[in-house]
């Protein structure tokens, strides 16, 4: 392993394929995706079982009606949601819990920005389509829980049930996923010299705060 972590493998995510699971409703916030009490941990391991916990279980831990509880969706990896999904808290615990539950891609009407950024940092595409397209897809998933959904990140299409629909993937997200540069640490660290110069130019940054060149 090199000192600057250059050898971290970053897979290219140009294509995601799997069966779907629909979660309906607008403004589903990150407190709902992962309630704060499950954040009392210093790693993200094991968060998968707590995804949507409070809407999946009652006080006595009995299962409630929720797609994440249904047998037919247990192998699903493409989440289909409505608008403003992931709003609220910036907690990366939310996409981490979805990823650890088994989600590899999310298709929705719209996403909150911090949530979408957090998904990108994990290599999870957040692709968007209009409300009608999403509802059709959610209905299709209901009827075809084992049906395959192909998310082509590069071509910006979703194919299911013999039909291909256009979707939108934010330009930077698409490029980052397709080229395998969505984990930005090593990439940005390689610009350390330019970063130091920028710091030196800023009137409020003390010289002592700027590290020496490596």
């Amino acid at each position: 392993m090199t000192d600057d972590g250059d050898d971290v493998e970053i897979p290219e995510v140009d294509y995601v394929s799997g069966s779907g699971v629909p979660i309906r409703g607008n403004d589903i916030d990150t407190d709902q995706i992962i309630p704060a009490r499950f954040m009392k941990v210093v790693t993200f391991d094991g968060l998968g079982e707590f995804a949507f916990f409070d809407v999946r279980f009652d006080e006595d831990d009995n299962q409630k009606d929720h797609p994440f509880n249904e047998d037919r969706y247990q192998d699903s990896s493409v989440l289909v949601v409505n608008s403003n999904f992931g709003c609220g808290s910036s907690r990366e615990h939310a996409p981490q819990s979805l990823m650890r539950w088994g989600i590899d891609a999310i298709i929705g009407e719209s996403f909150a920005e911090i949530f979408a950024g957090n998904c990108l940092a994990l290599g999870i595409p957040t692709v968007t389509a209009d409300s009608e397209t999403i509802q059709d897809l959610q209905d299709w998933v209901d009827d075809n829980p084992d049906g395959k959904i192909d998310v082509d990140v590069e071509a910006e299409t979703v194919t299911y049930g013999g039909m291909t629909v256009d979707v939108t993937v934010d330009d930077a997200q698409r490029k980052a996923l397709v080229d395998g540069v969505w984990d930005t640490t090593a990439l940005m660290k390689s610009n350390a010299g330019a970063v130091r110069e920028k710091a030196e130019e800023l009137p409020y940054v003390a010289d002592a705060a700027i590290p020496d060149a490596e």
Partner: protein
Amino acid sequence: MSEGTLYDKVWDRHKVTTLPTGQDQLFIGLHLIHEVTSPQAFGMLRERDLEVAYPELTHATVDHIVPTANRDRPYENEAAETMMAELEENVREAGIEFSDPTTGDQGIVHVIGPEQGLTQPGKTIVCGDSHTSTHGAFGALAFGIGTSQIRDVLATGTVAMEKQKVRKIQIDGELDEGVEAKDIILEIIRRLGTEGGVGYVYEYAGSAIEDLGMEGRMSICNMSIEGGARAGYVNPDETTYEWLEETDYFQENPEKFEELKPYWESIRSDEDAEYDDVVRIDADELEPVVTWGTTPGQGVGITDPIPAPEDLPADKQDTARRAQEHMRVEPGETMEGYEIDVAFLGSCTNARLPDLRRAAEIIDGRQVDDDVRALVVPGSQRVQETAEKEGLKDTFEEAGFEWRNAGCSMCLGMNEDQLEGDEACASSSNRNFIGRQGSKDGRTVLMNPQMVAAAAINGTVTDVRDLKEVTTV
């Protein structure tokens, strides 16, 4: 595209380069960290054998899970103790300054940054917390980030971001008695929606904003994210400079104040700046706003009727129906008289000194309703200390409020301060999401601090202006 705004200028000053993805790599002038979203990032750094690149531009505190009642170490709550110990270890190893509870400087991260003068105009500020937008009140470009981005900032001093559009929200006029900054932002979110700000940064301007103190400006910028905008800011002015001059940093480095002022002046939005959108709001027309639902956008003036779902835009109807069922409210009625069980005065939105002072004025000489559990959680140890000196603690305690130590507390229900069962809470915080305050059946009504005080006294949501009239008779 916007041009000549504070956002454009601060962005340009901090842009290192354009990354192959098309995102810009932005230099970060201040990285604030806390105990809940940072440990995993330090873990990732260790896995990759990386060090913290700019420890002196990083500052830590503990707020999210820290107990606000008994603070003897080890904390009774094992998870709180573990997270605290982890943060202590991480900051010690990296050489990061830590405003821990023994320093007297601890508090909610968005309260202590401005207090200590770490928050300054023209800085880029990030923190693993969505309410980082608060610091925009000083003319900083401040936004929340996730844990992988915290790793990026720790390792490189930079973050990868796409530039956004700028919407100017012009608020002119004068606020009525009992109406506060909180009501301005609740009104903005009510009008523009919880996702109206997605893709935008909000510039708050106009006479009503200029008339506000820094605390009020912080309350507004704080809730930008509830309207979907990742960042919000106010151009720096004399009010900003007066605050800065009193802070630790500029008390200790007075020469820096004059040295940096030209920079602060230079990043103000130009008179002829171009915006992607402009929205106007008349402050004269505002009354105290309270929420009736389960998103911060589901708000209503205290004397106005709760809307019928069918009268709302089609895409808002389902959410509204479910929210009204959860909250047990009826369309056509007002929120006045809605029974509450808990009154929470705290959070990064409204737990600064003037917030507590205004609430104390309402409380003074009155008693909290017998059926209400009421607590005040100051935003920081400094707020707490000053409030205690001013006698505010006595005022609150004599009225029946609990007086706590600083932290996030019942805003997000991570520590022991939580709603129980289906309790309803009059809250000065920022989110009324289902489950947010620790109970999935809990019901949160967001409002300004004076309104929380009034609700605590009456045991029901109350128009604070009615209580003021009683006082003056």
